[in-house]
């Protein structure tokens, strides 16, 4: 049984329908990438999975449970975390406080240990733990955002364009971390502009266009598919 299953979801805002009959699966420990042109509905998929938007038709299942109508904090309780693309850190809080807010639902006694684990992934954050997060560089902010999402040891992490706005060097560092995180346990569902790099690391991938599934396959398979390459990878 898949960890996450999106079954024929149709969703949108107000009068506009953005997703039509979208289905996807993420297995335990898998890394899956969603690619597609701008406006394909990639971020909307993420929001629908995470309960920020509820599907009009179809359903979202997590560990076998229907979570389509749950609120985000209830979904977090069940072991899923989300790293939004923008404003994904508390700029007024310190790095350490940001991490604590990621574990709001955890027992107080555990928090120090959980923080230490995150500092192992991102040693840079330990150096700067007392700094206000708003004063950090783009790459460091991304680390704070990812670190906070990992505080609860989630089974699945959703990441919305983690490399957006970063320098090429930083993109490399961030993806290294993503790979490391994935190896350590949690499954990762990632939306990425930087399709080449992300697909290379992924077990599987989906191509989304105009709110519908277009292609799916293994990461390598999609990279090699001539049509996907021509249409969506700019190759």
């Amino acid at each position: 049984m898949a960890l996450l299953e999106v079954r024929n979801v149709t969703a949108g805002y107000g009068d506009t329908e953005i997703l039509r009959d979208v289905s996807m699966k993420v297995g335990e420990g898998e890394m899956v990438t969603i690619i597609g042109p701008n406006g394909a509905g990639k971020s909307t998929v993420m929001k629908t999975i995470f309960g920020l938007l509820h599907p009009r038709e179809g359903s979202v299942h997590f560990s076998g449970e229907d979570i389509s109508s749950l609120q985000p904090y209830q979904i977090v309780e069940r072991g899923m975390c989300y790293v939004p693309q923008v404003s994904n850190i508390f700029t007024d809080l310190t790095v350490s406080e940001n991490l604590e807010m990621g574990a709001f639902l955890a027992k107080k006694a555990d928090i120090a240990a959980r923080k230490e684990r995150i500092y192992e992934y991102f040693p840079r954050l330990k150096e700067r733990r007392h700094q206000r997060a708003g004063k950090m560089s783009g790459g460091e902010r991304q680390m704070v955002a990812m670190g906070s999402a990992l505080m609860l040891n989630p089974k699945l992490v959703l990441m919305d364009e983690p490399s957006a706005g970063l320098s090429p060097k930083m993109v490399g560092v961030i993806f290294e971390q993503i790979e490391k995180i994935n190896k350590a346990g949690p499954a990762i569902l990632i939306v990425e502009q930087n399709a080449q790099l992300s697909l290379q690391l992924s077990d599987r991938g989906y191509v989304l266009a105009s709110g519908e599934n277009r292609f799916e396959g293994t990461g390598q398979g999609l990279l090699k598919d001539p049509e996907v390459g021509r249409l969506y990878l700019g190759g």
Partner: protein
Amino acid sequence: MSMHDAAADAARHARSDDRTSGERIMAALRSRTALAIALALTLVAFWLLGYGQGASLSNLLSLTIWGVMLGGIIALGAIGLTLVYGVLKFPNFAHGELVSFGAYGTFTIMALLPASAALRPFSFGWELLVGMVLAMPLVALAALIVDRILFRPLRLRDASLVLFAMASLAASFFLRSVIYLAWGADFMFYYPGRANPALELPLNIRIQADQLFVFLLAAVLVGVTWILLARTRMGKAMRATANNPDLAQVRGINTERVIAATWALGASLAVAGGVMYGLASQLRPEMGWFLLLPMFAAVIMGGIGSPLGAIVGAIIIGIAQQVSSSFINPAYGPGVAFVLMIIVLILQPQGLFGQSGD
């Protein structure tokens, strides 16, 4: 925002992106510095104007100290106002009425308590402090009931800011009508006719012991609030929610609980502010309404959602109000606060400690 804008050509222009964000911080610093300088110059101008009108130095010094004390009272109200503004994202025009309720509620509770002798050199006895502490949960409860009836349905409906503001104005007039009905329109005093002589201090400074107490209590409560916000998990969640409510939800923070805690804390501080204000002057139904403008000025000056900013703003406004009374009619105190607020809005609407958007 900056990350989003830069997303398109980030790879190629990585360096220039760093520079622009650096420049942005510089620009923010510059205008924030400009605001701080402008406010400092205003205060200096007020002192000079007072001096020019013949106020003696010791007189001006006394006024400044009274200003810090008034600032403490304003700060007690303004911290709650800024937290509610930050967490719930609307200007709560009913916050002044929480201040009034605190003052009147304490008055009524005191009447039920056995009267004790004055704690010399202060003019008040234990019952004032006990009454204040007992009034805090009651006013907090009143705030929660108003939130439940009025603001929560709007929140669930995702109503516009204007409707929230309108609803809070309705709450303000409703609560004030309750005060008029329950306690009447006449001025009241905690200790009518009790003498409260000024202390003899060096440099000819004249301060009453009560005024000193007001300032000390304000300082202690501000300190306690600071610890609550900086050290406890709920306090941090409050700051987080004020900073970025959407992300707070995403991180699994139960925002309704945070909102309830915010009302409780804001209302409790408002009670203390109301009692101190009532002790320093008198109780009247409009007392909270008169404090509303200085409180808003302090909140905007400090930056919406920033408790530290509200404290700093409140003290600046308190001093400005008191010192200005050496050269203009003291009745214009709230007007002085208003002028300072307009200066802030022109120079740097985000205030001294506000977020520069993200």
